[in-house]
């Protein structure tokens, strides 16, 4: 069902793509930063601290998206024993963790002047911390377990268990009362964020996605080099 590529072919693809992704990342980041820091308007209530949101929200989205991808790849790997899935998932994890930490830190920086506190043990913030713990467990278990067959199983199970946390993060602000506000960007109904603030938000999201993709390609390349060095022709 899933075609297994030759290592050399994969390597040349992932290697060539890097510079294009890097170029696009620089373009989106510079336009996004100019929009977010200079051109977009301040908020009527929180004035310029709204600009933290242009880093906070995309980071949170990207870290959630990456974890979901890792979990679904793990399900695929667990069921079909496709080793490529677990290598892709492994290479995605570090940028997911970094964006998760950025979301937590920028949230705290925004929370102090807005709410009056750096941290609140409400459902949204706590479940986001749990996601960071799952990322940590996932990345560490790749390093701890030496046995090749064991390590793919254990990391897959961790990601699949962590998947249960993802809808909890998403809906925590609706299921319970939280200090964190509900989402402003909505798919099914009108967004409660002004259109002039949506553009920088989406540009920054695109930049962060491209950055994750770039780091992923580099990590994945390294994994392929390791396999090549062992003299294996196929994954």
């Amino acid at each position, binding site marked *: 069902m899933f075609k297994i590529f030759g290592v050399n072919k994969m390597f040349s693809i992932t290697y060539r793509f890097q510079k294009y992704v890097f170029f696009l990342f620089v373009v989106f980041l510079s336009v996004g930063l100019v929009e977010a820091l200079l051109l977009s*308007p*301040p*908020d*009527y*209530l*929180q004035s310029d601290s*709204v600009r933290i*949101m242009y880093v906070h929200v995309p980071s949170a989205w990207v870290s959630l998206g990456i974890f979901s991808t890792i979990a679904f790849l793990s*399900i695929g790997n*667990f*069921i*079909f024993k496709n080793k490529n899935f677990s290598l892709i998932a492994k290479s995605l994890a570090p940028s997911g963790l970094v964006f998760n930490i950025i979301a937590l830190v920028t949230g705290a920086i925004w929370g102090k*002047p*807005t*709410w*009056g*506190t750096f941290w*609140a*043990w*409400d*459902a949204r913030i706590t479940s986001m911390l749990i996601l960071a713990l799952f990322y940590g467990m996932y990345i560490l278990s790749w390093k701890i377990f030496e046995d090749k067959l064991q390590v793919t199983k254990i990391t897959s*199970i961790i990601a*699949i*268990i962590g*998947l*249960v946390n993802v809808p*909890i993060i998403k809906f925590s602000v609706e299921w*319970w*009362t*939280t*200090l964190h*506000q*509900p*989402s*402003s960007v909505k798919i099914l109904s009108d967004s*409660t*964020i*002004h259109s*002039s*603030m949506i553009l920088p938000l989406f540009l920054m999201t695109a930049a962060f996605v491209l950055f994750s993709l770039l780091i992923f390609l580099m990590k994945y390349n390294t994994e392929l080099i390791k396999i090549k060095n062992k003299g294996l022709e196929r994954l």
Partner: protein
Amino acid sequence: MYGKKVKLRVLFLFLLLSAIVLTVFLVLKSLEENVVYFLSPTEVKALNEIKKEKIRVGGMVKKNSIKINDKIINFVITDFKNEIIVRYDGLVPNLFQEEKGVVAEGFLDGKNFFRASKILAKHDENYMPPEVKEALEATN
């Protein structure tokens, strides 16, 4: 189409995920009163007994209700059904305003009075430039 092993693995994952989802659901359901960050004035009214321990009450700061005399701030938290009168001695965050969200942490004095030890401003999900806000207010 798929081998027996693949079917067994799918079944295993299905059982694993169902077990975890159910466990998490039961735990969150039974801990509901700790998972919620604050109670609304209506929920405070509905309490069976006055809680001795520290709780949080949240809602809107009622219009024209903030009264400051000698560092002590009195205001009313409302959810437009019920109200609770809050007394607080200390610093409030910048975004603490009338007709904006607030979460007060402290102790109940009966069902209508609350001694707050900490005030947090709750920001809502509305983001807009000042001009748009003015335009909105002008049309109202």
